């Protein structure tokens, strides 16, 4: 059902955990619906230097969280905002159709984390 890449990111998720001193935090989803994703970022010079996540959700949700944090690191905020559901699915070598939309909250959570950072900066 899942690609090897999904299985890899699900069984060995990168960047797991809380970030006490995050510059931005974004939460998307709701456990009532089966998935909730929390993304923490550190930002320096408009670039994401570090990203971590905590996720409640299915295998796809965890893999998406893992890859979005991996992809975000090193990007400028503007570049990071261009990450989409589609680009995450592509980076994972595809997601099953029913997972495409319901567990693929990574881009939204990242966007919220960036917005959180920006609002804290008063930008």
């Amino acid at each position, binding site marked *: 059902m899942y690609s090897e890449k999904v299985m890899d990111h699900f069984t060995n998720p990168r960047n797991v955990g809380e970030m006490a001193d995050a510059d931005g935090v974004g939460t998307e989803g709701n456990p009532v619906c*089966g998935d909730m994703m929390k993304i923490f970022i550190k930002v320096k010079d408009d670039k994401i230097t570090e990203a971590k996540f905590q996720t409640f959700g299915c295998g796809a949700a965890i893999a998406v969280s893992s890859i979005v944090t991996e992809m975000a690191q090193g990007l400028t905020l503007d570049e990071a905002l261009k990450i989409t559901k589609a680009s995450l699915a592509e980076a994972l070598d595809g997601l099953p159709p029913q997972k495409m939309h*319901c567990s693929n909250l990574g881009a939204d959570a990242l966007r919220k984390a960036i917005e959180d950072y920006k609002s804290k900066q008063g930008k």
Partner: protein
Amino acid sequence: MKKIYMDHVATNPLHPEVLDAMMPYFKEEYGNPLSLYEAGMNARNAIENARESTASLIHAKSREIIFTASGAESNNFALKGIAYALQNKGKHLIVSKMEHHSVLNTARFLEKQGFAVTYLPLDKYGLVNPADVEKAITDETILISIIHASPEIGTIQPINEIGQIARGKGILMHTDSVSSVGNIPVDVDSLNVDLMSFAAHQFYGPKGAGALYIKEGTRVVPLIYGGIQENGRRAGTENVPAIVGMGKAAELATRDLQKRIDHVKPFRDSIIEHALNIENLFLTGHSEQRLPGHASFIVDFIEGEAMLMLLAGKGIACASGSACSSRALKASPVLISIGIPAHQAQGSVVFTIGEDTSQEDIDYFNETFQAVIKRLREISPFTKGWEGTEDSACTVKK
């Protein structure tokens, strides 16, 4: 890698003796059972022997057994068969909120055709209250259909009591015994039922073979019309090997039932005991009135499909009632009906064991289950409570 099959309530491996019994009917004995020549007559005899063994398993008479192709077909047949047979008498049916989709969706179809259906509530253990059945009965009621045992939470319903109420009022009673027949003693007479669905793949028989028990003298309209197979009540060239396999599986189940129960029950208890040591985890369903090989839990703060996938990675095959593990992307209605909030229902996980399960398997499982929970909780944003969870209804995002 170790492979431990813990999804026996979904389907089961074929018993090797069952396959052996089926083989001749794939090879030499291919004749049409309705025909007059020898190969056909051998097939016919084999079917009647299988009917006898299948009847014995539930203490019925062999002419009360109609072979079908699945538990779902039997359920559809029972509900529609009685509804159409008795529609002039009344148009009200009673079912419970624990029913399998094959009963529920048939009930919904009948609602569209002008029937009324009452869906009885469940208590927190999943039990139907016989008093609720009694209250739901009207002059229009023609059929009560209550599942015997839940594949999701293992709870066994008080069918005999409900059947007694039905009989007292002269109303027909059907039970979906797909997950109970072959796993616990089942006797159609002491259960007071007029119809009962069951399926061979639940007791080491083949897929493609089910049965509907229809008490002598009960009129049902066929679901599958056609020739005179199954006494004109279910048409189609008989699936002789599958029927023979069901008969053999029934024979083995009759013989080994107690042994099988004695085998799985201590394992089930060990799973439950070990699991309950884990924090923020609870048993779903009734602790006593439950299937002997069935252990089901809610694990807080993590999601069922993720558990399934990690366990599968460790060689353990099991099931979940979480939204993400179902293709309909909806948490199990049974979990919701026993009062589990939707976010907790996401942490559902179900383990069902069988005669192939060993002590070693259980030891490995107990260890692995704990490790998997620990791992997923490390990833989860929740640790001590469901802070921030909106208690809103969730619509599937498309």
